[in-house]
């Protein structure tokens, strides 16, 4: 039983790494991947534990944990995404597909029949367009964005102080969206981008001049694919 679990875990790790490599267009960085895996584990680990033990013990004794899991982990995770949608910062269609897909895969653990396979297959079918969307627009991928941020910071010779006040960069865009990576958030608004970087990331990137850094980052994203 333990051997199967280890093999399953290794296969999952391999698939995840392949997915990261594909979505980031080959620009792998450890830091954002660690963050993303931790984030995914918070959703997946309780589920894995739950599915493993449900065959051994009475299911009802885990109901409080399931409720806690839904309240503390799943609702904030999906809730944050839907909050951004309500604020018109995230596309509705792909987030809807992702949310429904994840919920279908998660809910499959409650069934012991053939329905499980259908649910998982349907869930993955709904999730795949989300990944295709990220692959087409690589700046939506945290790993790609962090690697680009590192490259830009290395090219900036002017050092600068850090500030917690958002930096406003004028650009051509008529779409609202939010792009983020480890310690960096970019809010795209009408004809402007609002950039925020935390102190730790600023230090890790070698204290670049904030205005130059965000200007170059926005320009690189614009060249990758014009925000329309």
């Amino acid at each position, binding site marked *: 039983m333990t051997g199967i679990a280890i093999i399953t875990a290794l296969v999952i790790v391999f698939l995840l790494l392949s997915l990261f490599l594909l979505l980031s267009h080959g620009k792998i960085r450890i830091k954002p991947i660690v963050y993303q895996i931790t984030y995914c584990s918070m959703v997946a680990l309780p589920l894995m534990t739950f599915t493993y033990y449900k065959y051994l013990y009475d299911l009802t004794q885990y109901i409080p944990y399931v409720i806690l899991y839904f309240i503390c982990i799943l609702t904030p995770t999906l809730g944050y995404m839907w909050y951004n949608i309500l604020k018109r910062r995230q596309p509705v269609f792909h987030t809807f597909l992702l949310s429904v897909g994840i919920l279908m895969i998660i809910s499959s653990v409650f069934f012991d029949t053939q329905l499980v396979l259908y649910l998982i297959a349907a869930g993955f079918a709904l999730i795949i367009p989300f990944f295709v969307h990220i692959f087409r627009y690589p700046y939506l991928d945290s790993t790609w964005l962090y690697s680009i941020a590192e490259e830009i910071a290395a090219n900036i010779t002017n050092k600068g102080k850090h500030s917690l*006040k958002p930096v406003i960069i004028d650009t051509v865009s008529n779409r609202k969206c939010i792009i983020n990576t480890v310690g960096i958030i970019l809010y795209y608004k009408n004809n402007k981008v*609002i950039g925020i970087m935390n102190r730790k990331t600023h230090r890790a990137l070698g204290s670049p001049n904030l*205005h130059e850094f965000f200007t170059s980052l926005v320009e690189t994203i614009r060249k990758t694919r014009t925000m329309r």
Partner: protein
Amino acid sequence: MVTAQRILDTLEKYKFVISSKQKKGLGRPSKIYTYMGGEFSVNLDEMLKIYQSRLIYIREAGNPEVSFSFDIDKELINAVLLKGRSGKKIKMDDQRGRLLWLLPPPDSRGETIESIAEKTGFPIIDSVIFFREMIELNIIEEVK
């Protein structure tokens, strides 16, 4: 448009009158004003001196002890926190918050007070006075 309410508000700002709120029945509470009197003088030299400062280039100082509370959607700074969350909190009204929001980041070329004030529609003299206060608090700096 000049209204009686606006004149009374301005007089109250300079403490020529004092208001007290009174609530009777339905509707908003009414204000009762008491005349206090006083003297009002204008130093034109000082005002011109302040007005000349409008062309100074300013930017954020990048003080590590200063943090900001802001609203991304409204695009304004709600408050400035000195020495972290445990320190002094300076609350900003919408217009001052907007002025601070448009402030260029540290180590940038900077922007003149006049151009920032024009973007917000805030009076230039009031903007200069406000930015001077912020310079004294080491929140922003002059570009030399």
